[in-house]
């Protein structure tokens, strides 16, 4: 990884001149960001800085007003089957888990492979059980999401994303809705993924995770990327005033 934080244009995910408005509010201002294969990019910043919107724009759950977003060299299609196909290659983990409430844990993980990838049912189930084992919830496979704790649900959501063999996984504040004692179990799964060279974009407030697992920290404020650097540099000597303020506020305690 480059120390300067500016990467080549040939990233797995490449955003160029991306702008988005919510009415009057300019939530993404001319965003340029390139994420290399195997890279773990942590996006941090104050609330309302546009970091979740940025994350959601990468698989077009949010549309953008101008600019381009490319995945593996291909621009995002605007709608329809080609967009669905592209999304299948981009995993997403949500703040509120969003497990399919009417499906069992196992069905949550197998549904994508079965219906989107048309995987053989036996194979899909076997792979799903391996993934549930890996995230430590295999014993809950036949239960429904509402019967699991938040931490367990979020780990299932990670298994669901992994089941599609994605090129990149987007994490939109994956631990923000969790009770404190459950945050660690989810972060451990994510750190494990990072070690295995999964390409990840993680919007989070967990500075510990950013320090230990990120290759690069991207700091956003008011819809702009203000600063980006490797975690050591960013946390010890942030250059921008806004990053210094932000870190001053959150690291005080």
């Amino acid at each position: 990884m480059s120390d300067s934080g500016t990467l080549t244009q040939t990233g797995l995910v490449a955003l160029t001149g991306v702008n988005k408005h919510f009415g009057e509010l300019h939530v993404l201002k001319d965003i340029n960001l390139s994420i290399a294969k195997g890279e773990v990019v942590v996006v941090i910043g104050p609330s309302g800085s546009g970091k979740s919107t940025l994350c959601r724009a990468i698989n077009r759950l949010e549309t953008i007003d101008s600019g381009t977003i490319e995945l593996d060299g291909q621009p995002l299609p605007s709608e329809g089957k080609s967009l669905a196909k592209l999304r299948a290659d981009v995993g997403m983990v949500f703040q509120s888990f969003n497990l399919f409430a009417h499906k069992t844990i196992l069905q949550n993980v197998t549904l994508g492979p079965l219906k989107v990838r048309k995987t053989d049912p036996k194979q899909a189930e076997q792979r799903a059980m391996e993934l549930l084992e890996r995230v430590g919830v295999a014993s809950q496979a036949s239960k429904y999401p509402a019967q699991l704790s938040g931490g367990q649900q979020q780990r299932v959501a990670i298994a669901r994303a992994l089941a599609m063999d994605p090129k990149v996984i987007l994490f939109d504040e994956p631990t923000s809705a969790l009770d404190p004692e459950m945050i660690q179990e989810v972060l451990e799964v994510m750190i494990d993924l990072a070690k295995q060279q999964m390409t990840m974009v993680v919007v989070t407030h967990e500075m510990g995770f950013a320090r230990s697992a990120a290759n690069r920290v991207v700091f956003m404020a008011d819809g702009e990327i203000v600063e980006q650097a490797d975690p050591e540099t960013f946390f010890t000597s942030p250059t921008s005033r806004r990053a210094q303020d932000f870190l001053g506020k959150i690291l005080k305690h």
Partner: protein
Amino acid sequence: MLSVLTDNWDLFRDGFWLTIRLFLVSAVLSLVLGTILGAFRVSPVPALRAVGTGYVNTLRNTPLTLVFAFLFFGAAKMQLALPSPFWTGVGALTIYTSAFVCEVVRSGINTISPGQSEAARAVGMTFIQVLTLIVLPQAFRAIVPPLSSVFIALLKNTTIAAGFSLAEAGAIPAAMSERGENQLITLVWITIGFLILIVPLIFLQRWAERRTAVA
């Protein structure tokens, strides 16, 4: 009082049998058409949404008698070939009822958190898959009670067909008056007939509510 019914059993039997057929066929067809229209109304394609909205706004606000009149007389005026009176009646009832089914389906879809469909889209499902695999199965639970009301209304609405040469239960009073039978007792028996028909609908609703209860 019982003799009014037994002496004219043929009228009652044929009338209610036609009512049942009109109801069942129209119920199935309006469930299908209404669900498709409901899907239109939440579709990502603006043109489909416009079609759905236009349909509901027009048909839901047109009296059913007028829908019948348009089909039976209007279509004849325009020299359009009509199917049998039975199927024309089914057509009128279906066109009208599906506007209500559409709104019930749409309101059911709106009870499902947007996170459910976002997660399904993020996995790579198409709009149809998101709807049929994730949203509608969950929405069905919220749909059952209002949908039952729509179908009970449909059952009673079939009596409009009597005015359009369909001898269903609503046409029994006229035939009975020709036979010189007591009108009041006739009406009481027809009411009892409809109550008997509605009972299975209520049981169907209870069963569907239990079936769809969350685990």
